[in-house]
């Protein structure tokens, strides 16, 4: 045996822990506008670099620059801002509702609003998302009623899911939003299956998979990439890299690859990284990938580089594992502020109008909340019936469940 000395065990560590000063100076951030926009039918091998860069549109001055800019009208941008502000207000209210005991659990999007809101606007009716629990922007930007979302969160009598699911585990086929599973990554391969089905059926609808940075480590991520690569499925596979998986920093899932987009390289799948806090960049990259899929050019992997500014969920307290100020130090800024500044720069928005919009949106959210609470909250008011608990396990209730329902006296 060659004597090469003792092996040492390597465990990656984040740069800073609570008590330390956050430092993202080693995260390379390319200038906005600097990354080229390849042709839609580019050979994936020619754009391997895009897996290691970051596509950005909005620069520090609030201008939209470079080849990925110019896709959205002022009205569309204003609408986008409103969606993100709505999602943020919605989150704040529901977070509070949970603290008030009106429901058991909540998960917010703070800092990540651009990702799902902007992506949604690049989709066509009939396309299907397979979301995780952190893409409610797909619903908000898709016009799904906030009251219905709240009814689900409250598990009240008007909950479309009859109280059966954890709060925020929405489902709306009509709005292209697949039933959220609490199990990580399972839905990624399902998105590929849905896309395969669309191709098998000669349809032109495409599917969109969503996964978090931490969850890319899960094996179904691999299943999804293998199937997407082999069958050239019309699917966009999104990785939302918000730097954290509960208390675990992204380096544990990512390992030595440098980026999550890099995972696509091993499958011949075009892989792009995008500034996830840049509404315009997310939208432009989404458009590109969606067009590829719809033109039967196959799957695209997109890593959205963002930051989870809030806690993982209402059960989590991030101060135990990361510096409090880390969020402020995050070099890609805040998606709402960045789009606001851009609109102000464009001359179609102002601080006053923003403050006013904020107030209006809050009113709308509060009004929706009031309406939802008329149908009850988790522990008070009307609730889904115990009978509902026995329904829908199968299309037709089998005899043993019927007997159990009788035993339950309902």
């Amino acid at each position: 045996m060659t004597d090469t000395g003792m092996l040492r065990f390597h465990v990656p560590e984040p740069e800073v822990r609570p008590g330390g000063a956050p430092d993202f100076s080693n995260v390379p951030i390319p200038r906005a506008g600097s990354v080229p926009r390849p042709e839609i039918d580019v050979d994936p091998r020619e754009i391997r670099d895009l897996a290691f860069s970051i596509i950005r549109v909005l620069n520090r001055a609030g201008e939209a620059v470079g080849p990925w800019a110019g896709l959205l009208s002022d009205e569309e941008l204003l609408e986008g801002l409103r969606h993100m502000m709505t999602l943020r207000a919605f989150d704040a209210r529901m977070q509070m509702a949970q603290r008030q005991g009106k429901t058991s659990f909540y998960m917010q999007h703070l800092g990540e609003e651009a990702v799902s809101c902007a992506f949604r606007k690049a989709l066509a009716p009939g396309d299907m998302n397979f979301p995780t629990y952190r893409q409610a922007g797909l619903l908000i930007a898709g016009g799904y009623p906030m009251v219905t979302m709240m009814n689900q969160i409250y598990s009240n009598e008007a909950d479309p899911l009859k109280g059966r699911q954890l709060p925020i585990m929405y489902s709306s086929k009509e709005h292209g939003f697949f039933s959220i599973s609490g199990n990580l990554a399972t839905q990624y391969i399902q998105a590929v299956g849905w896309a395969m089905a669309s191709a098998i059926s000669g349809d032109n609808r495409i599917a969109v998979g969503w996964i978090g940075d931490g969850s890319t480590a899960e094996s179904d991520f691999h299943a999804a990439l293998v199937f997407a690569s082999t069958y050239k499925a019309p699917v966009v596979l999104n990785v939302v890299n918000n730097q954290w998986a509960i208390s675990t920093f992204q380096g544990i899932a990512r390992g030595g690859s440098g980026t999550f987009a890099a995972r696509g390289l091993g499958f011949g799948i075009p892989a792009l990284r995008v500034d996830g806090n840049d509404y315009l960049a997310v939208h432009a990259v989404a458009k590109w990938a969606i067009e590829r899929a719809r033109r039967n050019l196959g799957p695209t992997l997109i890593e959205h580089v963002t930051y989870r500014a809030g806690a993982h969920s209402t059960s989590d307290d991030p101060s135990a594992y990361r510096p409090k100020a880390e969020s402020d130090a995050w070099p890609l800024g805040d998606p709402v502020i960045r789009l606001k500044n851009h609109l102000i720069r464009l001359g179609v928005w102002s601080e006053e109008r923003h403050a006013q919009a904020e107030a209006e949106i809050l009113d709308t959210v509060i009004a929706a909340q009031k309406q939802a609470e008329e149908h009850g909250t988790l522990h008070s008011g009307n609730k889904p019936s115990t009978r509902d608990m026995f329904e829908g396990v199968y299309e037709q209730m089998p005899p043993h469940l019927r007997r159990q329902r009788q035993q339950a006296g309902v």
Partner: protein
Amino acid sequence: MARKTMIEAIRDAMDVSMGRDERVIVFGEDVGFFGGVFRCTAGLQAKYGKSRCFDAPINESGIVGAAIGMAAYGLRPCVEVQFADYVYPGYDQIVSEAARLRYRSNGDFTCPIVVRMPSGGGIFGGQTHSQSPEALFTHVSGLKVVVPSNPRDAKGLLIAAIEDPDPVIFFEPKRLYNGPFDGHHKRPVTPWSKHELGEVPDGHYTVPLGKAAIRREGSDVTVLAYGTMVYVAEAAAAETGIDAEIIDLRTLLPLDLDAIVASVSKTGRCVVVHEATQTSGFGAELATLVQENCFYHLEAPIARVAGWDTPYPHAQEWDYFPGPARVGRALVETMEA
């Protein structure tokens, strides 16, 4: 009416279903061009094209997961897992996703998929080609679990499974593919062409899920069995001369409890048999249901005959397999108890 092997009957079920309904598609490892290692899908790709019958990468989670996505889209995938012993990588998708989708979305999305897989031993397949994991699925609400024991049922049950609006786990006792095997492994097996239940109607028909069949009427003791064990039980009854009523459950979930209760109430005795390991096998559920529902009719303890609680061994296959001698002994003991 043609005589068919169980393989042919299963293939026929998929053929008929694909012919009637464009949404039915078939895929799995080696099922496309080659037609499956047991040839259950032979000819389907040639007939229906590569979009409706194709080879899958070796990833059982991917196969089931993709099928779930397809079902959510509106197709009706019928997928093959090459051996039941290899279903575990796909277990999460089956348990956490397929089985829960209708419930958790309140019917917004549903999951009409069939997951077919050869199960059971008796072919010297060792621990990874012999397992009978049905009890791991009967514990999962939202699934249906089917185990046919003959070509006629296999076709009708598989068509019913494909048409069912909910996910169905479909076990194919591989030792029965070519003939009704009664556990006498040294004797030649009668081929299906010589067996009444090898007669398989042409075209479309279904055998309803959730209905058992009485294979042998009798008054001494009720035997609850499914798959290969139906024939082992028949042999045991014949050899012991005990007038057993043999119920072929066919569907384990939902279960035909009425048929079971009617029979045990009549016989007052019950023997439960399966190939799977005994502890926490489906026999435990059966025995428990019988004692819950027929307690005052029971004249003897309900006996179980099952695979021993060891992995399935290679060389000791016939020591492991619950053959007619062991079942016969249980019948005698139950009668004498």
